[in-house]
């Protein structure tokens, strides 16, 4: 059973302290990722962690794997190159709500469509934190941010449903409040062969919380606790009881051909001299 002590072996302690604020939820998600890796037993040399740009995308610098911190929104393209070039790698993508669904939206939906075996852990904190608190494609209607000073008028994505529609094999949403459940969602996503998305609701009290009367980590965690509802429970409730809630749990868990495997079948069929 993974503890906080046992996952320390995966950290690059020489680069601590992290740049994250005191009370940032990113640490909880990182812990969940490392516990999952320990439970499954992946080797460090075999793991490639790829990220884009943002607070959550700083994660790879702090972990002792093959790490790749790329350009804003483009982590999935780089990760596709890594995985497709060497399908034996375990490739984890760490991204944020802005990185993955604004600038990175195209790559996000295509990797899901392609069903390439990547585990994408999307830290959704409803804001662009690294750049100082601008609105993102998941900022709720009415929320204040540095670019929505009068309250956001723009509609947010339901990222998990977007991933399901795009064709992902495994889609789940968790929160940093429900940390134990999060461990399992991430682990199952990693074990799954195919494109897995685990959308994690993360507290950013510094940039989302403060302008929206959720100034402390505790208030944000309470907000997650009080407003989340499992998908299974939601299915049994009338729409007015579900409105405004964050749905958590598993949205998709299906089996379909994985891209690298399909390509390998093609190579086996057409290759001259058995390849190479």
């Amino acid at each position: 059973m993974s503890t906080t002590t046992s996952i320390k072996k995966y950290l690059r302690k020489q680069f601590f302290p992290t740049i994250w604020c005191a009370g940032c939820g990113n640490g909880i998600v990182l812990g969940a990722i490392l516990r999952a890796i320990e439970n499954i037993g992946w080797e460090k040399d075999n793991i490639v962690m790829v990220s884009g740009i943002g607070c959550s995308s700083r994660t790879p610098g702090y972990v002792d794997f093959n790490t790749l911190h790329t350009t804003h929104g483009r982590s999935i393209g780089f990760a596709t190159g890594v995985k497709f070039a060497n399908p034996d790698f375990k490739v984890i993508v760490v991204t944020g709500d802005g990185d993955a669904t604004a600038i990175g939206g195209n790559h996000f939906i295509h990797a899901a469509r392609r069903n390439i075996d990547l585990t994408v852990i999307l830290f959704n904190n409803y804001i662009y934190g690294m750049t100082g608190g601008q609105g993102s494609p998941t900022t709720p209607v009415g929320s204040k941010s540095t670019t929505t000073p009068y309250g956001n008028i723009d509609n947010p994505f339901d990222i998990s449903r977007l991933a399901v529609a795009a064709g992902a094999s495994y889609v789940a949403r968790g929160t940093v409040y429900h940390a134990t459940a999060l461990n399992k969602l991430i682990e199952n996503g990693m074990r799954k062969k195919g494109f897995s998305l685990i959308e994690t609701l993360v507290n950013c009290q510094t940039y989302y919380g403060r302008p929206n009367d959720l100034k402390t980590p505790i208030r944000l965690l309470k907000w997650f606790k009080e407003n989340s509802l499992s998908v299974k429970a939601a299915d049994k409730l009338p729409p007015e009881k579900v409105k405004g809630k964050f749905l958590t749990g598993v949205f998709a868990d299906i089996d379909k051909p994985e891209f690298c495997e399909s390509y390998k079948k093609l190579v086996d069929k057409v290759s001259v001299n058995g390849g190479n």
Partner: protein
Amino acid sequence: MKTTKGTVKFLTGNTACALGAIDAGVRFFAGYPITPSSEIAEELSYLLPRIGGKFIQMEDEIASMGAVIGASLTGKKAMTATSGPGFSLKQENIGYACMTEVPCVIVNVQRGGPSTGLPTLPSQADVQQARWGTHGDHPIIALSGSYVSELYWQVINGVNLAEIYRVPVILLFDETVCHLSERIVIPDKSEIKLAERKRPEVSPDKYLPYINDETDIPPMADFGSGYRYHVTGLSHEETGFPTNDSKVIDLMYRRINRKIERYKDEIIAYKETDTKDAEILVLSYGGTARSAKNACVTAREEGIKVGFMNLKTIWPFPYERVCELGKKCKKVLVPEMNLGQISLEVERAVKSDSDVISISRVDGNVHEPIEILEVIRKNAN
């Protein structure tokens, strides 16, 4: 038909690029369709699976460039191919490859621009963009070719240079040569020398992926080979981890730029004809050089002492050689399918020693030899 040195074929420039890539050891291609480069992707989509290589058509040019860089980090030789609009899209990730020193090759089959321009007609108007398209001071190597056979060899040279210098290499080809069919001798594999990136010899715990050593070129470990390190586009220290330390930033920044500048004599290549006693120099590259050479041959027959220089590397530019030639040639004529992008560099090289005359054609057509010949005649005497 087999000759003692290889097999004679009749191919388009694009097909020659694809074959050159395979023979250069490229085993990963990610690309997106764009005229007039699509045939390179099409050929490789057929050839790569047959030899266990990887071909993928990505959702856009930006993802293609990212995938190429990701694949290169696993140790593979990786390439993409595009044209003007796609080349513009790739710039951010090309800069990423410059900063992280990841070997990769980008074919740009130049077409009329700007913007959508002339998808099916040539230009040479991306020359300065190849040097400065991405933001920040950065090193780059860009090669050119005038004949189908040259494109084949320049792809191999490009892949080798990318490996040796840990830098993106732009193959600045043009629609003229890429879409024409010409005789080419595909060599026996024994005739081809391939280069591999320098991999580390120290133990993983001592490895510094961005070490500032006397070569200026850090050894590069493959992901998964036991060397675990961090790659980032942020300014970084020798460990690869981001830094804001001004001393460290200055060292890294100057090293990655110096890396190409100091080895330029090993990188720069050009072909000179009749320059020994030349009084006029015609300097050209790519598809235009075919017409320029023809004009020079005729001019010599007319008794004009004209020399011809065909650039095989566009970047780094051969300032020293052009400066030398400028001292004896009072006129340097530069025919280009753009408004004088290389003329600018020639002017820098020759300063006041020589007059630089730009002969521009920007209407989607290659210069006809007579156009260049008339300018040579006018400037003789």
